[in-house]
C-alpha cells in the first residue's frame, strides 16, 4: 500500500472512531459516569489476552468477543461494588479497572514468556498503534460506528430526558435501565474498536476529552453534539499529520496531546474572558 493510502486509511479510521467515541463520551457525561469508559478500556485487556491464548490470532474479529465480555464484566463488577458493598462509584471504578488491568498484564506476560507465540502485535492494544491497522479492520470498525451513530440519531432525546431526571423518567414510563444498557453497549463497541488505535490507557481520553473541551466552549447539548465531532476530527487530523511528518511518532498519543491542548487552551480562554459556560 502506498504511503498516501496508508495515511488515508489511518485518518478515516481514526476520524470515525474519534467522532463516535466523542459522541458516546458526551452521553456518558450527561449520565455523570465518564469513568465507565476508563473502566471498560482497562477491562477489555484480560479478554484480549485470553482470546489470544485461545485462538492464537491477533485479528480483531477473534479478539473482539472476549474483549467485549471482559469489558462488560469489569463494569458489572464496578456496579456490583457500588450496589452491594456501598463503595463510592469513583473508588469502585479505580478498583475494578486496576484489578482488570493487572489481570490483563498477567495474561500478556504469560503470552510473552509462556511459549504461546510472539506477543508482538498485542502491544498495540496496550499503547495503541494506528499505523498498523488494516483497511478491512477499518471497514469493520466503520460499520460498528454507523450503528452507534444510528443509536445516537434515534435515541438521543430519550437518553437526554432520562439522564436529566431518572426518577421522573421512570414515573412517566421510561426505562432508565435500558438506557444504561444501551450506553454500556455503545461504550463497549467504541472501546473495543478504538483500542488498537489508541490503546487501553489512552482510550478514555478519546471518550472524555472532546466532551470536556465542548463544555468549555459551548453550553447547549445540541451545540456540543457538533462541537465534540469537530474537536475530535481536528485532533485526529493534527495527530495524524504530526505522526506522518515526524518519524517514529505515534498517532494516538498525539491526538490525545492535541485534545489536551484544546482543553487547556479553552480553560485559559475562559479564564481570560471570564466567560462562564
Amino acid at each position, binding site marked *: 500500500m502506498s504511503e498516501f493510502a496508508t495515511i488515508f486509511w489511518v485518518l478515516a479510521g481514526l476520524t470515525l472512531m474519534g467522532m463516535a467515541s466523542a459522541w458516546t463520551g458526551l452521553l456518558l457525561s450527561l449520565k455523570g459516569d465518564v469513568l465507565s469508559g476508563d473502566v471498560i478500556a482497562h477491562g477489555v485487556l484480560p479478554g484480549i489476552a485470553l482470546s489470544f491464548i485461545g485462538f492464537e490470532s491477533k485479528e480483531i474479529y477473534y479478539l473482539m468477543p472476549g474483549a467485549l465480555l471482559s469489558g462488560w464484566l469489569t463494569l458489572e463488577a464496578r456496579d456490583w461494588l457500588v450496589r452491594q458493598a456501598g463503595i463510592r462509584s469513583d473508588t469502585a471504578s479505580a478498583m475494578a479497572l486496576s484489578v482488570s488491568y493487572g489481570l490483563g498484564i498477567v495474561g500478556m506476560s504469560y503470552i510473552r514468556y509462556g511459549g504461546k507465540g510472539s506477543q508482538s502485535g498485542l502491544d498495540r492494544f496496550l499503547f495503541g498503534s494506528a499505523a498498523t491497522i488494516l483497511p478491512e479492520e477499518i471497514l469493520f470498525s466503520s460499520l460498528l460506528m454507523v450503528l452507534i451513530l444510528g443509536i445516537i440519531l434515534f435515541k438521543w*432525546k430519550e437518553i437526554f*430526558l432520562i439522564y*436529566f*431526571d431518572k*426518577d421522573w423518567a421512570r414515573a412517566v*414510563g421510561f426505562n432508565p435501565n435500558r438506557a444504561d444498557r444501551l450506553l454500556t453497549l455503545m461504550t463497549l463497541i467504541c472501546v473495543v474498536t478504538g483500542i488498537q488505535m489508541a490503546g487501553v490507557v489512552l482510550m478514555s481520553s478519546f471518550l472524555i476529552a472532546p466532551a470536556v473541551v465542548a*463544555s468549555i466552549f459551548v*453550553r*447547549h*447539548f445540541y451545540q456540543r453534539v457538533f462541537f465534540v465531532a469537530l474537536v475530535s476530527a481536528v485532533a485526529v487530523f493534527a495527530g495524524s499529520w504530526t505522526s506522518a511528518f515526524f518519524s517514529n511518532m505515534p498517532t494516538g498519543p498525539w491526538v490525545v496531546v492535541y485534545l489536551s491542548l484544546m482543553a487547556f487552551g479553552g480553560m485559559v480562554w475562559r479564564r481570560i474572558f471570564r466567560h462562564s459556560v
Partner: protein
Amino acid sequence: MASNEIISNALEIHSLTVRYGNTIALHQVNASLKVGEMVALVGYNGSGKSSLMKAILNLTPFEGRITAWGKSVSEVLSKVAYVPQRAAVDWKYPATVKDIVSMGRYQPGLFTQRTSSEDAKAVDSAIVQAGLQDLQHRMIGELSGGQQQRVFIARAMARQADLFLMDEPFAGVDMKTEDAIFDILQSLQKQGKTLLIIHHQIDQVIKYFEQVWKLQEGKLETGSVEAILGQRNK
C-alpha cells in the same frame, strides 16, 4: 354504587404498606382524592410523604392497591404528572428551559421521539401558564430556585395530565415566588385537575389549602385543615 364512587375519585389508596427492609415507612394507609381536589400532604421528615408519592408512581415496591380513575396507575400514566423535588437533579445539565418543558411531551415505547405541532402547542402553552416566556431559551443553570421550580411545573403541565403529584414545589422559594406558584396550582385546579402536593410548612398549608393529608409514624389522617391541623384557613 361502589364502582361509581371509585370512578369519581381521581386517586384511591387501599391498605397501602411500604417497607424498607425491616422498617415500615407506611402502614395500612387508606385515602382518596376526588376529581378537582387540591390536597396538601404534610408530615415530619421521615414520616413517609415521599414514600407515599413514590408508591403512587410505582417507583417503590408496596403492598396494597392504588388506582387512578378506577384503573391501575401504570395504565393511565399519560394522565399523571409528577413534579419531583428541585434538588433531585443536576441543574448544570446542558439544556434550556424549553428543552426541559418539551420533555413533558416525550412518550415511552416509541422508536424515536418526534415533535408534532400539537406537542409544540402544549409546550408553548405550559411555558406561558408558568410565566416562563422570557426565560424559555435560557440555560436551566442560570435560573433562580423559584424559576427552576416553575420549569418543573411547566414540564408537568406540558403532559396535559389530569392528576398532579408534587413533591415540595414550594421548597426554598421566596414569598413572591410562592404566591406565583400557588396561582399556577389554583389555575390548574380551576381547569378541573386534581393535585396532591407535599408541603412541609404548616403555616403555608393553612394559608393556601382547604384539605390536608397528615402522615405521622407511617399512618395517615385525612380531612379539612381545621379538623386535621386544628386551625382555620386564613
